[in-house]
């Protein structure tokens, strides 16, 4: 098998957005490229398969956005979400280069859809893929193959032969059976984050990690991050940090994607396993609070809590994959959820007594709140009084981890001591922690993947051609 891939310029490890952006750019630069995707073809694309849009700055209102989103505004949004904890040089590159992505993507054949009614708040800032992230990936794969990329599916890189910051070959397990050694002049590592490595999560979170759901692909086990760190690369980010949102507890362990998230919290009342409220459900708009709630749920006993709503609000949030547990009384719902019935009834009764009159409006921070209740509910507080009542069990759903490999502005992996590796580049979640070490801003992951994927592909191709030229010169010398 290895002879098929002799004289390879660029080996791309990974098969998501960043990997394919790197592959396409390297191919366009004239390099030969092999892409290793560890999943079967039907599940290709890593977490990009579950994405939907990209946040791209644009100075004027152009198709497909509903308004202008200047790069300075995006920069401010970005700084607010990350609390300024970022590598400013790489972050600036990401934000200020983001406008170039739209035309680049269209040139690859990527289809965008017009702004839709239900998503107005993101239609100004984000470009939406027609059909979502899997459709994006289908297009990028088709483009890469048209340019001559070879793609191996079920091909998992499990080790890298690296000496003194120089990559020589990768050990690749094919279809979970035999392994092959694949050499290349340069390598782009774009193999995703660590969030599907349950052992790693346990190390960072303890036993609580057993009750996490992994919202994305089961293939992101972070093998390449670990291999690079073992080979002397510098790390970035806190291993115990991850982006988490509340998801339905009935979801599968992996790959539940978008449909398991629950958006009912701001409209309802949330109790833990003991039947107690523990946090202000109406603190702020859900868009600003869902990540905090993922973490809050993770801190409760058995990493589970329960959201109650009534008939007034059941249809006021996005539907989700699993039907609500329904009952004619709060107690009936609590019993089906295996909660202490009397305790939950008492919590709800106390809450109902504390609700003050107000004018309910879910589109603003309204004046519906509780008085004399701890913790209080500061907006959208309405009595749970209109049967039937509904309940959802909530678990933490992990979207991605922040722990990553440090890179420089050429996307070259930085070794301990600050020296860049000679021919090792990284893109996507493998290095996103440089730019997003905490917090989250919707649609930024694909932007990081695109910008650094393209840089890595370009750098790797240029270097491969240079080293090929040197090698041929040496060969000519030797012949003389």
């Amino acid at each position, binding site marked *: 098998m290895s002879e098929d891939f002799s004289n390879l310029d660029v080996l791309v490890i990974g098969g998501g957005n960043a990997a394919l952006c790197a592959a396409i750019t390297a191919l366009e630069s004239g390099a030969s490229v092999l892409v290793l995707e560890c999943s*079967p073809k*039907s*599940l290709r694309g890593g977490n990009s*398969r*579950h994405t*939907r849009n990209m946040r791209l700055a644009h100075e004027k209102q152009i198709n497909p956005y509903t308004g202008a989103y200047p790069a300075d505004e995006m920069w401010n949004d970005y700084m607010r979400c990350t609390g300024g904890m970022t590598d400013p040089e790489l972050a600036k590159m990401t934000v200020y280069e983001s406008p170039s992505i739209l035309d680049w993507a269209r040139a690859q054949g990527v*289809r965008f*859809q*017009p702004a*839709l009614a*239900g998503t107005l708040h993101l239609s100004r800032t984000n470009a*939406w893929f*027609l*059909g*979502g*992230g*899997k*459709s994006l990936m*289908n297009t990028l794969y*088709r483009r890469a193959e048209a340019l001559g990329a070879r793609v191996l599916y079920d091909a998992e890189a499990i080790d890298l032969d690296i000496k003194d910051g120089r990559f020589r070959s990768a050990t690749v397990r094919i279809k979970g059976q035999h392994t092959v050694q694949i050499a290349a002049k340069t390598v782009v590592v774009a193999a995703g984050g660590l969030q599907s490595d349950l052992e790693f999560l346990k190390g960072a979170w303890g036993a609580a990690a057993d009750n996490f759901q992994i919202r994305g692909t089961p293939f992101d086990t972070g093998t390449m991050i670990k291999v690079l760190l073992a080979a002397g690369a510098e790390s970035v980010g806190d291993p115990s940090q991850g982006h988490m949102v509340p998801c339905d507890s009935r979801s*599968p362990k992996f*790959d539940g*994607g*978008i*449909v*398991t998230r629950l958006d009912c919290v701001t409209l309802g009342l949330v109790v833990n396993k003991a039947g107690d409220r523990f946090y202000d459900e109406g603190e702020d708009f859900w868009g600003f609070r869902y990540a905090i709630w993922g973490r809050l749920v993770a801190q409760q006993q058995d990493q589970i809590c329960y959201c109650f709503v009534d008939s007034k609000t059941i*249809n006021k949030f*996005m*539907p*989700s*994959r*699993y*039907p609500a547990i329904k009952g004619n009384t709060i107690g009936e719902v609590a019993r089906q959820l295996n909660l202490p019935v009397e305790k939950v009834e008492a919590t709800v009764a106390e809450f109902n007594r504390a609700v003050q009159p107000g004018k309910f409006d879910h589109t603003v921070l309204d004046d519906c709140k509780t008085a004399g209740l701890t913790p209080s509910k500061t907006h959208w507080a309405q009595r749970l009084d209109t049967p039937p009542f509904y309940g959802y069990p909530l678990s933490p759903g992990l979207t991605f981890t922040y722990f990553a490999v440090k890179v420089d502005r050429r996307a070259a992996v930085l070794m301990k001591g600050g020296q860049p590796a000679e021919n090792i580049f990284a893109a996507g979640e493998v290095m996103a922690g440089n730019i997003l070490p905490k917090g989250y801003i919707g649609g930024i992951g694909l932007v990081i993947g695109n910008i650094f994927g393209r840089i890595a592909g370009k750098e790797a191709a240029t270097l491969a051609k240079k080293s090929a030229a040197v090698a041929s010169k040496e060969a000519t010398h030797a012949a003389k």
Partner: protein
Amino acid sequence: MPQSELIHIGEEMMAVCNSCRYCEGFCAVWPAMEYRRSFAEADLNYLANLCHNCSECYYACQYAPPHEWMINPPQTFAKFRAQTYEQFAWPKPLASAFRANALVVSLLTALMLVVFFFGAMQAAGSRSLSTAVAGGDFYKITPHEVLVLTFGAVGLFVALALGIGLLRFWRNIGEQTSDLTNPPAVMLAIKEALALKYLDQSGWGCAYPDEKSSQSRRWFHHFTFYGFLLCFAATTLGAIYYYGFGWTGPYGYTSLPVVLGTLGGLGLLIGPIGLWSLKTRRNREITDESQQGTDVAFIVLLLLTSITGLLLLVLRETAAMGSLLAIHLGIVMTLFLMLPYGKFVHGLYRSAAILKYALERARKSTLGV
């Protein structure tokens, strides 16, 4: 598959799709889905017939097999459509019998009718089925009255059967009979149906026969549909010439009925061959194999109609004319008889679904939702 099992699969699918909504930029099905929170059988029947089977959603789906939820809208909706075609047909037992062996039933019926027309010609004392007739005048072989009587009777029956089926479907999906003639909605629906808007997808085309989007299916359907329409127009015009002006056929090669019929015949040749060829290359993971029979039967009948019609035109002054006429008439009558029970009804049910979608949009904007 038992109906209850299919309904369960449909409900589960909608629970995922309506929570995801990534496909809402593709076709009418997804915005129509978003008008709803729960999905009863009638909703699924409606959405299934609104689906044009373009398959874009399947290739874009993060939950498609091998994901454990096995979301497969093209196949699931195809199964619902097959069920509606049978469930609302009149008389239903005819539809059930036909669906079981569509191609065999079609060919046997055609054979019987061809024999019948041969017999009718003999009985009418036509001079001969084996000698050329001057000017290709087929009324010398089959009296005009025989054609009018037999095709008139079949036409009335077919119109009745199609009408009853359509009304049953319309009521099932929760609409009033009077809304079938709501002028603005009907205009919009006609526009969308005639342009095959939902196979066009703003110019991208559809993922048929494979993942790569293309306009080929839309164009071959246009050839087929407009070919059929031109043939129908040619026949109608012939009748107007005959009854309105007393001009008896056959008409010259450059006359309007013959030109329309020839163009239509060519459309009915190119279109079905193209659709058939695309169909054979279709991804089998998303088709409902149980409909293979009725699909193929319809394509075969359309092709036989155009081939025999065009041959009849070319050879109408030779000795083969008599036999060709009997064969062509037998096939055309079979095609008409099979309309209410085969693939043809998709046009009616889908148009009705598009009309309902037009009505729903109008109601939403009136409500200001």
